């Protein structure tokens, strides 16, 4: 049996011969105050094993009791994803042995999920694709193992392992897409865009802080390839350890390149779990699904069925916030954006930031200009996301304000931004501390203009002959003389006045 033969095929080449199908399983830790089945706190980063009790430690004799708020949050997610909410459903036990699972079974849902059959419209490029949602179900999280010693940081080869059960029993929602077909070479971007959109949606619902870096949003990516035009699906792999939006995209891309190599070599893709490596951007084989354990699901006898009352569901529906897609359409109209403008804002993850900047008083076009321009460059250089920059929408609005008032020009504004990002304080503090305000003393400017004209007689002569565009060197000289603090437009005006 050939399983792992073949070498990576460059992505574009792979896309010439194969058609990918992707699917995503996203786990969202709910931000309920207490755990899924007990009253323990859920604070992230607490002292290990300080938020535990007999129930979440699975001590003999302990019993679970459902957290109603977790059910409500899950219904909220289900409704926002256009799902049908079950009028009756049960929890089930998923049985397998692992040291960080206190009971050696996980209380989850199996064939009776709380929410089924919905969709999410995902913006990609300048259009949107509709991703089908198979199911949204609720389960309990496991504890967290720390494997000490050994090369991989994984359990095999570790010298010893420590287990923190603070996370055990935190409510976890699993959102499973239907297979996403027909994306072609856009598959990696679609995968990323889906997770981005889902993250925004869940955050907007106020049910989770959806922080990938803290693991409150975790993603498994399923990928399969089939020869173009074959009309069938290939064998899928499930890639785990995909811990950032960028990784989602890279993981799909890398699996496509790997699977194309296997298929090109006449091999067979093995249905298995694969592990994504952030550093190399590639995946390696984990557990094989074909020899996977039998989870022996059966209805959880310690819990009674969940039967959300229709009135309650409608109450939750009525209280849902505006959906991200509807909000985008509204903002597009309010801000007068083209589809392309909206797409670039959306792709940069800047919609919320621009909206907040506008709310803080900036014009939509100024807000867009700064976030997509100088700030996007900064984020890109730092390899960070726009939202994680150390500047607030209010600060950006203030800078736009200072430019509009003529206190700053664009160049000075960039300096202020750099200073704010460097932690030098609010824009006004920076302007004062660094003396960055524009020179607006007409007398001083006039002197500088005269000096510049005197120093560049040939240039001045050409401008006098009507070659207005030739005034650049004169403007440059004035700007240099004022240390860049002059308003360049005003300087040009003064020069042209003088030479007319």
């Amino acid at each position: 049996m050939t399983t792992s033969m073949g070498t990576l095929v460059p992505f574009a080449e792979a896309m010439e011969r194969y058609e990918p199908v992707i699917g995503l399983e996203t786990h969202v830790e709910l931000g309920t105050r207490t755990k899924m089945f007990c009253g323990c706190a859920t604070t992230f980063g607490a002292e290990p094993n300080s938020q535990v009790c007999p129930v979440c430690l699975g001590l003999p004799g302990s019993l679970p009791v459902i957290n109603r708020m977790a059910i409500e949050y899950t219904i909220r997610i289900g409704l926002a994803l256009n799902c049908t909410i079950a009028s009756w459903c049960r929890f089930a036990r998923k049985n397998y042995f692992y040291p960080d699972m206190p009971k050696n079974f996980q209380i989850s849902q199996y064939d009776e999920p709380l929410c089924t059959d919905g969709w999410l419209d995902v913006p990609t490029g300048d259009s949107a694709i509709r991703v089908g949602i198979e199911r949204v179900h609720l389960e309990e999280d496991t504890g967290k193992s720390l494997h000490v010693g050994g090369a991989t940081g994984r359990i095999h080869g570790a010298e010893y392992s420590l287990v923190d059960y603070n996370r055990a029993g935190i409510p976890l929602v699993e959102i499973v897409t239907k297979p996403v077909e027909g994306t072609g070479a856009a598959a990696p971007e679609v995968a990323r865009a889906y997770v981005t959109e889902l993250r925004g949606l869940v955050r907007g619902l106020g049910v989770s802080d959806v922080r990938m870096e803290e693991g409150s949003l975790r993603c498994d990516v399923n990928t399969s390839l089939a020869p173009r035009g074959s009309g069938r699906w290939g064998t899928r792999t499930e890639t785990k350890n995909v811990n950032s939006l960028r990784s989602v995209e890279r993981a799909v891309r890398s699996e496509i390149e790997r699977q194309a190599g296997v298929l090109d070599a006449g091999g067979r893709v093995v249905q298995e779990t694969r592990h994504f490596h952030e550093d190399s951007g590639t995946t390696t084989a984990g557990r094989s699904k074909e020899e996977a354990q039998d989870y022996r699901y059966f209805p959880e006898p310690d819990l009674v069925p969940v039967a959300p009352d229709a009135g309650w569901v409608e109450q939750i529906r009525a209280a849902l916030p505006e959906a991200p897609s509807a909000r985008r359409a509204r903002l597009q109209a309010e801000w007068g954006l083209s589809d392309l403008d909206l797409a670039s804002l959306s792709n940069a993850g800047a919609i919320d930031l621009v909206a907040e900047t506008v709310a803080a008083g900036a014009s939509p076009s100024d807000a867009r200009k700064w976030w997509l321009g100088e700030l996007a460059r900064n984020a890109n250089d730092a390899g960070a996301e726009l939202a994680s920059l150390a500047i607030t929408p209010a600060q950006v609005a203030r800078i736009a304000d200072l430019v509009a008032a003529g206190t700053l020009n664009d160049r000075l504004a960039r300096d202020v931004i750099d200073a704010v990002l460097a932690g030098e304080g609010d824009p006004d503090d920076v302007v004062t501390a660094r003396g960055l305000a524009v020179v607006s003393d007409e007398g001083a400017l006039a002197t500088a203009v005269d000096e510049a004209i005197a120093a560049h007689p040939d240039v001045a002569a050409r401008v006098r002959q009507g070659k207005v565009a030739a005034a650049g060197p004169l403007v440059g000289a004035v700007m240099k003389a004022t240390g860049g603090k002059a308003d360049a437009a005003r300087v040009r005006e003064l020069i042209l006045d003088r030479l007319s």
Partner: protein
Amino acid sequence: MTELTRMTAAELSAALAAGEVSAAEVTLAHLDRIAAVDSRVHAFLHVAADRALAAAEDIDKRRRAGEPLGPLAGVPIAVKDVFTTVGLPTTCGSRILEGWHPPYDATITARLKQAGTIILGKTNMDEFAMGSSTENSAFGPSRNPWDLSRVPGGSSGGSAAAVAAYEAPLAIGTDTGGSIRQPAAVCGIVGTKPTYGGSSRYGVVAFASSLDTPGPFGRTVLDAALLHEAMSGYDPMDSTSIDAPVPPVVAAARQADVSGMRIGVVTELSGAGYQPGVLSRFAEAVELLESLGAKVTEVSCPHFSYALPAYYLIAPSECSSNLARFDAMRYGLRVGDDGVRDAEEVMALTRERGFGAEVKRRIILGTYALSSGYYDAYYGKAQQVRTLIIQDFDAAFGQVDVLVSPATPTTAFPIGERADDPMAMYLADLCTIPSDLAGNAAISVPCGRAPEDGLPVGLHVMAPALADDRLYRVAAAAEAALAGQWGHPLLAEAKGLD
């Protein structure tokens, strides 16, 4: 023997309230009795003499201070070693939990303490409540006080033996397939399986979650009712607990009246495989009830014949999952942790060493029954049978108020007789399993001794869910009439240990 250990809980309650005796004296008398006989009976796995005495002195102090106390304040009790208890180990009769001191009290343990009962210690049981004789205890079997060469039944055999041997006036156990009623029957005492959800499972180490039901043992019907009332009621920590008032069991036990009650004799729970003396005592008990004014008819419950096989799929399936947590990671036995073996090996070695043969048998059975490809044929089918049994009960309770049968097919069997024959052992629960599958209420009350071996026989009464009080009306009426015939309680006929 002192008088105090011969008194019923109701008599002790009255004497304590009247100040005729102190809780400390009562407790000491029972501790002395345990010291005198338990080396032969082996009802207890742990005796908490110091704690019990301290608790008794506290009750006496509170009583002297004029504090209002419940009816069972100062009355000693024995607790099956499946309930978690702060300050006392909880082993479930298993090596895998040997030495485990739970950090929390079961809801029922807490309620017993709240009621002022004095916990004497923890009683022996079949490992994880799997068995009908206590022979599956990792710590050796308990013995039947009627005949020390015989089993006291199980799995709550230690609790039944303790009460029958006058080591405690009251005890609690759990009933999953008959684990209260069967030992009560073969020890000649009263034992009740309340309605499922009527008594909390929080802190009861799970065998089969959808079946496990804690309940009381007493030497009289009234004693069982007093304990039933004290231990039962809604518990928000148990999702399957029923949020309804406890049925008026004590009033019913005092009423002891069956006139006009419709009693159905279950056709399927008699005949081949039943000991003749058990059937004759049972038939006499039914005649007696009729003579007391009950209307007796025969009722068929056709699916009861499938109860045993359905039970032996459902209970092992649940247990295979419930017992997965015993993996050496957090508590209990740990085998093979030499710094070289990995976690999986340590788990496997621990479970191999820590579990007994019957527990392993059921884990394997349940693992198989839940496996992909077999689920529908085994677990799924068993659940369908369970539904049919519930429908049989519903139909029957449409015609009669209670159903009756023998509590067990035979009297207490000799230790070792069935130890190597699981099927023979399983048959001991033939009459009791249907009520567990349906989740309704049932009681066993002594109805005489089988002529061929002189051992006690239990009359089994079954009532609809939440109609537990009907059990006590019937049982108390039978008890009173029989005691009238005999001139004393049945237990007085036991050869005794003195």
